[in-house]
């Protein structure tokens, strides 16, 4: 795409456009969680014994754990027995070719703007689509295959690449890490698996779309990405759900391991249904995302655009173990109406000369609450390490809240840690200027917000950036007045 094309990307405003329900025959297990549920899921997926053991261990750990309450969130009590833990389209869930996929399912992904057919492959993106609990289609990509890149559902990886899964699953996010990670480890149904062999740069972007469709279902996906020495991959994740009056639980775990000189760029556009204006319905999003730079000069970059969910509890983090390894976190979190978000990152500097950058842009509208929570930890061995953090908050109304909790924990005197924070309101002068040029208030605010978030948006791959901008605009609708 030329620079001029970039300048001319279209943005148009719409309502939450992913709020439809797909009418498709589903197999849903009864609500409730017990050891039997865990065994059922494992059996349903024909898992080997070691996988079942992993799940059961996690389940028993979870039973002894308690819901975390430290976040700046008002979380209504969640009845874990009132959730169904597995739902899959009734027809054969995994397809060898596009012709076998239920047309209704294809239409769903089409409406979401995710054509699974050939053109997506030509567009240079390989897609894994997770519908409720199962991966329905991973676009097959010969190029990936030739390079030895593995991109498949985690269920397939358990069957076909057990050694890799055994070695890495739970190695970055241990099953006992936290309440939701333990729950996920027990009942995760599907998700994506990526392995990039040494020295290979993935020529295409790998992308997963998560869709919750079934009522009363909890979605627990698991993603595992391994970048071997000197490899590179850019991975994208998108999420949507129908509009429903009830709340639905989403508790995912993402683990990323980056070896020496490897690089992973992980981008998320999170657009789970946020609930209505009064705060009815919406997804509870409790997600554990963590990566580790295992080797020297490894790099992990997180970029997230968070506009959805009634409640967001999410801290994509990086452990900088290898010397000279680099961690980045770029985030735009927009909350409107009654949404609550508590999000940020954790950068743990263990290796020497490790560097991390945190750019967080919070935008609060309506009566929402938006919290940045970050921890920069530098161990005593991490000589010569540096961190730069910038946390900006933008308030659009006087009924919303922005909160910043930056924790810094440094045990090495040669470290440089910089922190900048600003809180601002959009200036009336800016709005008047844009109105004088013919833009209404919503358009004016949307333009200003997009400008404010630019530093983060420009980290996203092109196609995703356009989507993210559109999403910000949609999410701001009704935020004024």
């Amino acid at each position, binding site marked *: 795409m030329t620079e*001029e094309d970039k300048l001319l990307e279209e943005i148009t405003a719409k309502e939450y456009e992913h709020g439809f329900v797909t009418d498709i025959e589903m197999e849903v297990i009864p609500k409730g969680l017990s050891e039997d549920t865990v065994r059922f899921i494992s059996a349903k997926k024909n898992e080997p014994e070691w996988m079942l053991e992993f799940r059961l261990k996690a389940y028993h750990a979870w039973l002894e754990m308690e819901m975390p309450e430290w976040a700046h969130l008002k979380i209504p009590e969640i009845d874990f027995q009132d959730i169904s833990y597995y739902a899959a389209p009734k027809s054969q869930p995994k397809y060898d070719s596009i012709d076998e996929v239920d047309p209704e399912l294809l239409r769903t992904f089409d409406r979401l703007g995710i054509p699974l057919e050939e053109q997506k492959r030509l567009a240079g993106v390989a897609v894994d689509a997770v519908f409720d609990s199962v991966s329905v289609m991973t676009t097959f990509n010969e190029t990936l295959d030739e390079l030895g890149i593995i991109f498949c559902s985690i269920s397939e990886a358990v069957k076909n690449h057990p050694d890799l899964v055994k070695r890495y699953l739970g190695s970055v996010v241990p099953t006992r890490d936290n309440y939701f990670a333990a729950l996920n480890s027990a009942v995760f149904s599907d998700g994506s698996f990526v392995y990039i062999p040494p020295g290979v740069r993935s020529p295409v972007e790998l992308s997963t779309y998560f869709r919750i469709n079934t009522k009363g279902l909890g979605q627990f996906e698991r993603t595992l990405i391994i970048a071997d020495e000197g490899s590179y991959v850019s991975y994208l994740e998108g999420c949507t759900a129908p509009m429903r009056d009830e709340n639905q639980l989403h508790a995912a775990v993402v683990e990323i391991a980056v070896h020496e000189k490897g690089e992973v760029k992980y981008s998320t556009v999170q657009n789970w249904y946020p609930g209505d204006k009064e705060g009815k319905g919406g997804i509870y999003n409790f997600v554990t995302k963590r990566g580790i730079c295992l080797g020297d000069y490894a790099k992990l970059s997180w970029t997230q655009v968070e506009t959805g969910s009634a409640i967001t509890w999410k801290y994509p983090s990086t452990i900088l173990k290898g010397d000279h390894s680099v961690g980045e976190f770029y985030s735009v979190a927009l909350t409107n109406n009654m949404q609550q978000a508590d999000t940020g990152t954790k950068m743990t500097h263990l290796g020497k000369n490790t560097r991390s950058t945190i750019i967080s842009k919070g935008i609060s509208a309506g009566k929402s609450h938006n919290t940045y929570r970050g921890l920069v930890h530098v161990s005593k061995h991490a000589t010569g390490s540096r961190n730069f953090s910038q946390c900006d908050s933008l308030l659009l109304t006087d009924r919303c809240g922005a909160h910043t909790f930056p924790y810094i924990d440094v045990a090495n005197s040669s470290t440089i840690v910089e922190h900048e924070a600003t809180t601002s309101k959009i200036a009336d002068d800016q709005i008047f200027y844009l*109105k004088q040029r*013919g833009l209404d208030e919503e358009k004016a605010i949307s333009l200003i917000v997009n400008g404010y978030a*630019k530093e983060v948006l420009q980290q996203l791959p092109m196609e995703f950036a356009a989507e993210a901008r559109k999403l910000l605009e949609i999410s701001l609708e009704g935020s004024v007045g």
Partner: protein
Amino acid sequence: MSKQAILEIKDLHASVEGKEILKGINLTIPYGELHAIMGPNGAGKSTLGSVIAGKEEFEVTRGEVIFKGKDILEMEPEERALEGVFMSFQNPVEIPGVSMPNFLRTIINAHREHRGDEPIPPAEFLKKMKEKSAFLGIEQMVRGRSVNEGFSGGEKKKNEMLQMMLLEPEFVILDELDSGLDIDAIRKVAEAVNNMRDSGNAFLAITHYQRLLDYIVPDVIHILVDGKIVKSGDKNLALELEKEGYEMMMG
């Protein structure tokens, strides 16, 4: 028979925070004319411009502003803009992160949408933007910067002219167009204004100094003192004013 008026202001009173700034303005501007408002600091010149454009902090307590036959005082600023009122700001604000091309295309399309036209084709837009910004000598700024960010005073004013040229409004308020400009920049922005003047539009130039009017020759000059127009006349009034000072007018 007198020419048809594009703007008629009748007995306009306006206050800010309870303090009356405009105390009964009467002003008629016909199509094809450029009127200048001159006056000492604090006379209400910029307030008049802001009230016409619809800035909310000013409260109109009495009077009418009729634009193309319609009272626009109840209209939102953006509706007035879409109807053809354009204001060149004295201090244009910066909008960080919003690229100039994105901004320009967005405002052009807002106007096109209002007229029921399709969005401007990308190639046509780029050609126009290039051409007009090259004329003003700000081609580089326009390509690489955010709106007004890092622009010098002169570049900001040229950017206002660029928007004017792209939007082709029917009525233009020039608020202190020459403030902070060197002579070359004044010539350039004046050229932009003079090129646009025709029988289908009109201008209101607000200025403290006579200097601008050497380059943008007005049809009528009004002297505004303490919220009222105390004298109107042709371009020679400016020279008179230059000699005598505002004190004379106030006496």
